[in-house]
């Protein structure tokens, strides 16, 4: 898994002028998500309550 380091993350946020005090927490949070991420082409069935299901096609 390609996890970002604290330095990499801080650099990315700095590039876009985004302030975040909790960079380490953000990295940890999304690392778990990325591990679990499934590239299914859309989330209609995983998010059945999504109000745009009708038309979105997951794009």
């Amino acid at each position, binding site marked *: 898994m390609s*996890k970002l380091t604290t330095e990499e993350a801080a650099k990315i946020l700095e590039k*876009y002028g*985004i302030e975040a005090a909790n960079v380490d927490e953000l990295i940890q949070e999304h690392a778990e998500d990325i591990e679990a991420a*499934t590239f299914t082409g859309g989330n209609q069935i995983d998010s059945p309550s999504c109000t745009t299901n009708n*038309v979105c096609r997951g794009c």
Partner: protein
Amino acid sequence: MNQIGTFLWTDGINFFDTLHKKIYNKRPRKVYDKMAVTKKLLAPPKTLQLSLIPTWSCNLRCPHCFVLKKLNKNLTPEETQIENLEKFIKWHQDKYTHKKLTGLIIGGEPLLFPDICMEYIKLIKSFGGFCTLTTNMSVPINDKIIEIYNILDQSQVSIDGPEEVHNKTRFFNLNMIDEVKTKPNLFVQVIENLKILKKHNLTKKIHVAVSIRKDLEQKKAVAEIKLILRALGIENITIGHIAESAYYNKTQQQKITSMREMAKPCCSFRYMRHFVVQGNKLYADYFDRKEASFLGSLDQNFEKLPIKYEAHLKQNMPILKDKTCLSCSALPICWGQCVGHTLFDNFVPSEFCNQQQMIDKMRGFLENPSYIENLKKDESNT
């Protein structure tokens, strides 16, 4: 509202009652009665969903856009008839006594015409409805757009990955750069807009659908975009592959073929009565490129609309012509239209479907206690 829940728990027609048994007992399949399927589809709707189109203009020309061929070349708004739309919603509510109303503002790029968006949102909210707006977030944010996000319930923003990936995937509409003064770096424009919304504490209303082209799929790219979005206060993020283009038909065909591995139900005919409001015209299908789903005008008598809607559904819904679909246990959540309906003539959904995977996915839902509880809660609130 949970849409799958609506079907599993409230349907009075026998073939839906057998859904659970069919999955668990693996009974021999029975072909659903086509009339019964149609009857279910035409039952009084519990929800009225309106897709509201302020414009078919867009400041971008993304090759993966599903409505690329419908987009206007230049900056052109649709002529709205808010008073007549209000009459239509009232008429629909009186006729069907439905409890829910949702308005999805989409286009084109709706934020090119914030005044029209505002009119639509106010109307939907005046009926107690839920209003969402789908945007590429690359129109520079102004006070009017801030005002929109203040009263909007939810907004979907589509991003194709971090800067390099996003900018490789998306393209400007060269006809409109002067009119909208869009900055040359699209990704930076999106982030700048999101930063403004964060300052106003409005990013919690945003759902970002991150779709990355398969050949650009990199876990680090996903990590980067999620970091940026989370730092902007956006928690509602989904990751997926980009849906290939209707414009590039060959790619689209590959996409549909790949659906065999996805078990991805998707059908605009299911779940609710859905009208597309384009100016003063009503359509049944957002993807319609041939005016085939035109139902009528907002300044006409509404009583004929259900007849036209029914005729459109019977003529166009692919599963009604596909015996494999009509015998499928997953039909009540799938409805078989997939993405092929508006792209190919004589589309046969079962030829592109991995039926067993679809059924397995449904079983996964039904075996999840918290999912079932949520469905029941949704149902009791309906």
